[in-house]
């Protein structure tokens, strides 16, 4: 069973608090045993406040949620809060309090950290944001996640918090620290071409089933490196959905017979002499 809590504007103004909702949930332990997925949406004016005051209640709730497999922090649409305005916090202690979960999803990167990031069962980690700080990239790279099979990171743009460069991404491609990783998503990036070029012949491809470079500014430049790579041909799937590749390149991908998602082609925004490409989550 999936449970979602969210505190909207009116509830927040009326004094409804996330921590009380959590405490209310676990006050009756029996139904809690059936909960496999817990989603925290807007915790009330997420553009203004973190969810710090609800974290102790969430940590206390953990033993009462023995069958929880999936935890999502910050599932809110841009109708509720701009993703780059969500005030996150250090979610390391929260994750540590949930050794039973297998999937952890975070939305928003402002103020985010993951310290410590040690988890023996986690197989899926997803961070959805407008721009991922390099401090978080480093925390993930140095994490202890022996069971991790699926890692999806929205890298985003500088304006919304991506303060790194290709140098901060290369370690994931060249000395990947997760032995069981099968799915690597380095997505929603404004340097998607650089990532594609670096990924095309990276050692990590040998262990992957799927490389996901979707939702970014990928153009023919990055695609050319991918399409010429033998390592890419061995993948089970390549996700390039939402991209700036040409019709010709899309046709070339079709002709390879590979399993490649080339859907959602974008048009370059031409403004005088400039050409603008935007990742999906930053428009």
């Amino acid at each position, binding site marked *: 069973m999936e449970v979602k809590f969210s505190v*909207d504007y*009116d509830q927040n*103004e009326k004094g409804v608090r996330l921590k009380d909702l959590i405490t209310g949930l676990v006050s009756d332990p029996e139904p809690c045993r059936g909960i496999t997925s817990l989603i925290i949406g807007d915790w009330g004016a997420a553009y*203004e406040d973190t969810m710090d005051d609800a974290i102790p209640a969430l940590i206390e709730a953990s033993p009462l949620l023995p069958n929880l497999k999936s935890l999502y922090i910050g599932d809110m649409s*841009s*109708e509720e809060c701009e993703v780059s305005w969500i*005030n996150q916090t250090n979610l390391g202690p929260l994750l540590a309090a949930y050794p039973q979960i297998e999937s952890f999803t975070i939305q928003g990167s402002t103020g985010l950290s993951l310290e410590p990031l040690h988890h023996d069962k986690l197989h899926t980690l997803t961070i959805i944001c407008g721009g991922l700080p390099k401090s978080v990239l480093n925390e993930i790279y140095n994490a202890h996640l022996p069971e991790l099979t699926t890692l999806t990171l929205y890298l985003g743009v500088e304006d919304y918090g991506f303060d790194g460069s290709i140098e901060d991404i290369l370690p994931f491609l060249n000395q990947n620290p997760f032995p069981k990783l099968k799915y690597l998503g380095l997505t929603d990036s404004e340097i998607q071409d650089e990532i594609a070029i670096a990924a095309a012949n990276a050692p990590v491809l040998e262990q992957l089933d799927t490389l996901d470079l979707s939702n970014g500014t990928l153009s023919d430049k990055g695609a050319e490196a991918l399409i010429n790579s033998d390592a890419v041909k061995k993948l089970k799937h390549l996700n390039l959905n939402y991209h700036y590749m040409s019709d010709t390149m899309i046709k070339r991908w079709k002709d390879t017979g590979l399993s490649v998602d080339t859907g959602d082609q974008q048009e370059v925004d031409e403004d005088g002499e400039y050409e603008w490409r935007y990742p999906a989550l930053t*428009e």
Partner: protein
Amino acid sequence: MNRSPSSSYQQWLASASACILFGNPNNKRTAGWQQARAHHHLSSALVVPYIRILHTIRVGESLDDLLQAVFQRQSHQSHPIEVASSISHQVPLLLRLDAPGDHFAVERELIALGASDAEGDIDDRLVPLDAYTVGHLISATEARRLQPQHGRIWYPAQWFRGYCRLLSWLQREVSILLPQAQWMNDPADIAVMFDKRRCHQWLHAAGVAVPPLVPDLLGQQSNYEQLRLSMEQHRIYRVFIKLFCGSAASGVIAYQYNPRTGAEIATTTIGIDHSGHEPFYYNSGRLRRYTDSATIVQIIDWLGREGMHVERWISKDSWQNKAYDIRQLVCRYESGHAVMRLSHTPITNLHLRNERLLVDQSHLSAEQVLQIQHIASAGLHCFPNSFCAGIDVLVPSSGGHPYIIDMNPFGDLLYYVEHQGLGTYAWELQQWLEHECI
């Protein structure tokens, strides 16, 4: 052979199935209405072009003069007006007003009619908020010199005053010349529906759910600074700012500021053109996202000067990661076509290449669909002299009751959607024939 045009005009007026359509000829709306007439085996409507109405007002002629001239002209042209002989219903003369938009000569003449020095018979009684309908003003002569500029939003408050004057004239002339005729939507109601500020008051007073206003902002004096002050005082950080008389996405801004960082975002179709000696504002075909304060202040101050309506931004529900609202067509006795409009952006209007979905293909439960129809009907019932409107309904992400976010007296131009096997116009006409005719 010897029948004079005037006697055939009188005969037509008295005929059982006559309909007059005040609109712009040769557009999709007019064509759609004529097709609906044909579908129901009714004679074509007499199309009275806005441009002719405006000319008639200007030169001080009467509606009778205008109708005779138009009748004769159309009788001699490709669309003869037939006097239908065998009609099963007893149908009173039906008058239908359609949208004046997408016609530059009409727009220019409406601005001229809204000028302080407008010629002809000027009557402001249908201007819903007279004291607050004063934007940048130009003379009638200046108005007639305007040259088309793609997308430019011209003197909206003056345009609206001109349109209300036209509505007043039509309403009065009809009451004198054609007292037996029935308006599908009464001109006075159209004026109120068009003014978002007045329409909001009207619905709210009747107990129909509309998004709460940002307080203290009614009036032409409101500007960016006052807006921010009021937002801060009332702890409201997300609002929709609408040009009071805009249609569709024209003149709409989704505005938010971050109380923690001070960052602000204005998402809108409004662009500023700086190429001439003074900046002007236009509707761009794509959505823009402004984050620099100077531009945001400039646009909001301009909107405030023309007249703006500011509502709290209620989070819309999402479906497949896209926010949506519903355009619900309602006639007096029944709900009709409904279209879900989905977008990755806060502004869902169809023009902006957003997606649309028929409501019965969506995730909405039967109960939600009923709630949407119910509030749309409640909205229309606030206008007992109107038969039909396209009503935009917001379903909040919190899962609470829906809200009306816009009423469109001309909101029935919906493509590729059927209800009871009929397109919008044919369905409306069927409703009219069933319920309004003996």
